[in-house]
């Protein structure tokens, strides 16, 4: 097996691959990743979705790079994802599919991401992901005891090329900077095996 050098920290998404995030805090995770990627960000959400991003609440310098696509129907949404992944200048493609991703769709996304050198992040309903995903994150907002911290519980459930993990992160939603919170105790456990 070939090991690739780890670049960046634990939350760096492997480039040229498509990843998945689930849980109630998946949008926060997506914005966190959008702040960490350079280049245009494409956010694809179904046209019937009432929840739209609010420009004044977005992380620093994400709003001007953001392109919002609101296709009608699942087929158009998947097409938009594939087309955006295949386009070279896009930095990150974030999509909110409403139906479970099939293995075919997941595999096609991976091929498109490789062709376009673009990273993708699917915000899926819980357990509605495809097996072709590079990594799957479960994200939950967490209550914090101190008023000045905004805690997120991000755990890595599936990882094709690495270990799992479980982190409590303090990220205030304004920039790409974040703090690890170490008092969970879970990090002291040995990391689970990838396979």
């Amino acid at each position, binding site marked *: 097996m070939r090991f690739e050098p780890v670049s960046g920290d634990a939350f760096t998404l492997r480039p040229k691959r498509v990843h998945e995030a689930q849980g109630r805090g998946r949008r926060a995770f997506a914005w*966190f990743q959008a702040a960490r990627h350079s280049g245009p960000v494409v956010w694809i959400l179904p046209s019937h979705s009432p929840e739209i991003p*609010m420009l*004044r*609440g977005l992380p620093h310098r994400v*709003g*001007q790079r953001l392109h919002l696509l609101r296709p009608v129907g699942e087929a158009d949404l998947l097409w938009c994802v594939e087309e955006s992944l295949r386009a070279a200048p896009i930095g990150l493609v974030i999509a909110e599919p409403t139906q479970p991703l099939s293995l075919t769709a997941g595999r096609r996304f991976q091929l498109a991401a490789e062709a376009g050198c673009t990273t993708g992040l699917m915000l899926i309903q819980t357990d509605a992901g495809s097996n072709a995903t590079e990594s799957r994150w479960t994200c939950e907002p967490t209550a914090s005891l101190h008023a000045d911290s905004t805690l997120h519980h991000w755990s890595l459930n599936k990882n094709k090329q690495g270990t799992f993990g479980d982190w409590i992160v303090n990220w205030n939603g304004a920039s790409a900077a974040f703090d690890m919170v170490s008092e969970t105790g879970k990090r002291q456990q040995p990391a689970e095996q990838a396979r």
Partner: protein
Amino acid sequence: MALADARAICPDLATRPADLPAEAAALASLRRWASRYAPMVASDGADGLMADISGVPHLFGGEADLRDDLQARLERVGLAAVSAIAGTRGSAHALARHGGGIIPDGRLAEGIAHLPVTALRVDHATAEALSRVGLARIADLIPLPRAPLAQRFGQGLVMRLDQALGQHAEPVAAEPDPPHFGVRITLPDPIGLQADVMAGLARLLDRLCDKLAATRMGARRVRLELRRVDRGVALVEIGLARPMRDPTRISALFAKGVDDIDAGFGIDAMRLTAPVVEPLAPEQLGGTTMRHEDALADLLSSLGNRIGFDRVLRLLPADSLIPERSQILAPAAYSTAEPAPKRTGPDRPVTLFAPEPVSAVSGHPPARFRWRRMHFTTLRAMGPERITPEWWFDDPAWRSGLRDYWRVETREGPRLWLFVTPQKQNADWPGPAGDKNWYVQGEFA
């Protein structure tokens, strides 16, 4: 005559409002047609055309035959027109508006002598002054000495008379045609294969883009009409995210539309037009940022052509404190990115939605509440931030009066943006409803 008087005389009078732009457009197209008779055709007022036919009549067999040909063709399409041929522009103008005809060479003065002085394109006051002194026809004016005439009636009259008699030059000033962005190709044999259509399209696009480049324009919409053998027409139209004149990139966008059309028994003519064009200055070649912008515009074009350009959006900041109106969802193809406003003042949620009522509220701010079938217990609440409605807009969502916004962190995790409408009256009893009117409008990261 006033319309009321005319109606009194003839009650069945049918009237239509004048459509001046349509008339001007019809005259312009007639002017294009009239260029078959002369290289220089100008529009003459709102209802006339002026053609300089020097050196042309022998091609039609003489002036009389040319005029007959013109009249016959106009009559065949149902246009009532009067035409005149004369040695000068002024004489032709005068004669065409008073019966028409042909004035032979060298007999200008006799030809227009019988016409009234109003035919000389003089203004109403001058014509009235002339008739007051008994000068009704052009024949009365010609023998008069010029100096007293100019002194009495102005230089304009003398100039018009000289122009009509050819003593003062007046060329036909044909305005240049606006560039027409359309090319077509007719095929000797009908074609039906997609590759053949794309090859034909590539040839047309090369010519269209050359035309666009010559006038420094870029196409925003491109329309391809394919005429089938059975006289049916298949239409493919694409939009572009920004003005463009690159044949290969436009051709790529047509691939899907051409795939869908039904060729029937074959296609024997193709027509490519650019109905919407915008100025596009020549660009510097090379450079990575330019390539990225091109690639992004290509992506937006292909996305917009499939899902609609009104669904490829961009968030633009707007100057309002009302959350819904603090941003505009603008089509990305018709707007440019603006830097986001600085994050000042109280925090804003990262996700915004239409207000959803919460139930089972206890306390102010709510200590416990129920939203989307989930129970929440408040850990910390920050607020209130009071936002008053913009009284100059009548927004139905804001008729309940001002709102107090709270950022509520729950023990369960989610950080919600709640508001209460203290001014809203409750239907059951008089007085403010208070704690009953809590809503969630957003979720923080």
